[in-house]
Structures are given as structure tokens and as C-alpha cells.
């Protein structure tokens, strides 16, 4: 064996190392993607539960609407709530479809992009939801009092009280939206805000994105030559 043979064996060592490192990277990528899959499954379960809860609400509101179709003072508030519930349901179903359609054999970056987009959409959706809640409070009060207790909120609380509540709720919408917009740039720098966003959009989605970050490090990349 001469020095050239030694060189050939050294090249063989290099090839062996390349193969082993690729195998190791693929195994680690698969391991992290399993974590992603588990987190996405948890997130899907949560969303499915929300869909299941929303359906009876829709049915109850539907029957309330049918019962009060000739009474606009009850019909209109119930319709507002029904529309809100329908939008909620549609958004949950859309999120579920996105999560179910994730293909884990795709490049990590592509899965990352889809989950990050979903997270941003969820956050926007939640901002609108919380901004609209004060506006929905008077219709909810009217419908709940009539539907559950058989009481007429207009007669019991008076129209001015309900009108003031509605106006305050209406004023809260732009205020809350402005607040959300003002806080958005600080989310990345304030840990408490980041935790709040994680809680609102779902910890499972955050875990999935973290695991994807880790998996991205093991995505097949051209290795440095020597």
C-alpha cells in the first residue's frame, strides 16, 4: 500500500462520513417532524372540539331566529350572533382543513410557511373576535334573556341602557383594533406578550413551529467541502 492507496482510503472515509451524516440528519429531521405531527394533531383536536361546540350554538340560534322571525327586536340581535357564529365555524373549519392537508414529506420550509401563515391568520381572527365581543354583548344579553329565561330585555333594562351598551361596544371596536396594532411590533421583544400570543393562537402551534425550526437545521443542505 502506498500513499496513493492511503489517499483512496481517506476519500472512502470521506464518503462514509457523508453517508452517515446524511442518514443522521434524515433521522433527526424525521424525529422533529414527529413532534410537529403530534403538536398539529393536538391543535386539530382543539379545533374539532370548538367546531363541535359551535354546531349546537348555531342550531339553538337557528331555532330562536325561526321562532322570532316576525319580531325584528329579537330577530336582528339573534341574526348578528348567528352570523358571528357562522364566521367562527367557517374559520375553524378552514384551519382544520389547512392542518389536515399538511404534507410532512414536503420541504420543512414549506410546512413552516403554511403553519406560520395559519398562525398569523389565527391571530388576526382572534384580534377581530375580541374587538367585536363588546359589540356582541347587548345582542347576547337580549337573546339569552329571551331564549333562556323568557324575559324581555327591552322592557326590563330599557332601550337607552341597551343603546348605550351598543354604542360603547361600537366605540370599543376601533379602540381594541388600534391597541392590537400598536402592540404587534412589540410581541417579538416582550416575553409576556409573546406568551400571550402563544396562549391565544395555541401552544401546540407554537410547539410545532419550534420543532420545525429544529428540523430545518437537518434539512438536506450542501455540506462544506472539506
Amino acid at each position, binding site marked *: 500500500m*502506498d500513499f496513493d492507496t492511503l489517499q483512496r482510503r481517506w476519500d*472512502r472515509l470521506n464518503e462514509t462520513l457523508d453517508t452517515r451524516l446524511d442518514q443522521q440528519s434524515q433521522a433527526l429531521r424525521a424525529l422533529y417532524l414527529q413532534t410537529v405531527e403530534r403538536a398539529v394533531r393536538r391543535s386539530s383536536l382543539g379545533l374539532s372540539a370548538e367546531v363541535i361546540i359551535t354546531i349546537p350554538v348555531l342550531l339553538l340560534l337557528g331555532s330562536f331566529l325561526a321562532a322570532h322571525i316576525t319580531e325584528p327586536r329579537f330577530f336582528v340581535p339573534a341574526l348578528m350572533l348567528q352570523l358571528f357564529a357562522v364566521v367562527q365555524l367557517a374559520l375553524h373549519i378552514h384551519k382544520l382543513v389547512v392542518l389536515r392537508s399538511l404534507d410532512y414529506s414536503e420541504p420543512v420550509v414549506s410546512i413552516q410557511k403554511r403553519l406560520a401563515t395559519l398562525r398569523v391568520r389565527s391571530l388576526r381572527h382572534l384580534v377581530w373576535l375580541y374587538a367585536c365581543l363588546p359589540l356582541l354583548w347587548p345582542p347576547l344579553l337580549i337573546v339569552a334573556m329571551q331564549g333562556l329565561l323568557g324575559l324581555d330585555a327591552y322592557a326590563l333594562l330599557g332601550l337607552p341602557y341597551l343603546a348605550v351598551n351598543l354604542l360603547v361596544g361600537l366605540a370599543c371596536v376601533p379602540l381594541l383594533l388600534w391597541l392590537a396594532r400598536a402592540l404587534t411590533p412589540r410581541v417579538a421583544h416582550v416575553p409576556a406578550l409573546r406568551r400571550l400570543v402563544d396562549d391565544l393562537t395555541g401552544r401546540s402551534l407554537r410547539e410545532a413551529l419550534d420543532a420545525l*425550526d429544529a428540523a430545518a437545521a437537518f434539512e438536506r*443542505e450542501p455540506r462544506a467541502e472539506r
Partner: protein
Amino acid sequence: MAVDPRHEPFLALLEAHQKILYKVAFVYCAQPDDRQDLVQEMIVQLWRSFGRYDPRYRFSTWMYRIAVNTAISFARSSRRRQQPLVPLDAELTAGLLATPEPDELWELRQAIEELDSLDKALVLLTLEGHPHEVIGEILGISASNVGTRLSRVRQRLRQKLAPR
């Protein structure tokens, strides 16, 4: 699970050049456990020195320098290194350096095993295809000194590797 952003450049460079560490460990340690310890030690030393790394120079050259110096110190301080070479079956369990053709690598390491620490580095860097100037830069000796030492090593290896 998230990586500290301050560590990201280091980890990215380490990941891209990790083969260097395995190869240095292969040359300096016969035992898989020792190799693992040495790789860890090299990573620690690289991290400690990373603040002084000048990005104008090639990372791989800087990494070789730190890795080889660490390996030489490790070899000096470790008595375990003097234990006989492990049998091939044990080598197969060594993970990254396990190979479907162990005889080849066994012979390769046997050929390098008896060289002194500096000559091992010389052979390693030569087999890696580095020019004498770069080898001299990594080992802190002149390019002509590299040439002289290398021809001596080649001669010794030729004698050792000659078919009997």
C-alpha cells in the same frame, strides 16, 4: 427547543464543517469513546475561541487549527489513547465512523497510528488536499518545513506500508 440566536452563526458553521471534527478524531483516537470525548472537547474549544475568529479568513482553516491543537493536547494528556486499537466489530458500533468496509479504514488508521501528533496532523491535512502554505498556517510552521517533514513522513509510511 429554540436555539439562542447568539449561538446560531456558530452552530451553522459547526454543522457545515462537522466532518472536520470527525476526521481529526478518527486520526487521533483509536477508541470510539475517546473520539466522542475529543469531538466534544473540540466543540468546547471552538466555542471558547469563536469570539476571536476573523470572518475574513476561511472558517475551515481556523477550525482545523483549533481542532488539531485540541487533538494534540488531548492525545498528550490521555493515557487511554495508548490502549491497543479496538477490534473491527467494536468499531462498527461507533456510529458515524462505522463503515461497510472496515478493513480499509482499519489499515488507514493503523498506518497513521504510529506517527507522532504533528505528523498525524500533516498526513490528515495532506490527505485533505490542503497546499503546504495552508498546512503551515494551520500548524504554525513554515511551508518549506511542511514539505521537509512530509517527505520524511511519506518515506516512513512507504516503508511501513510496503507489502511484506
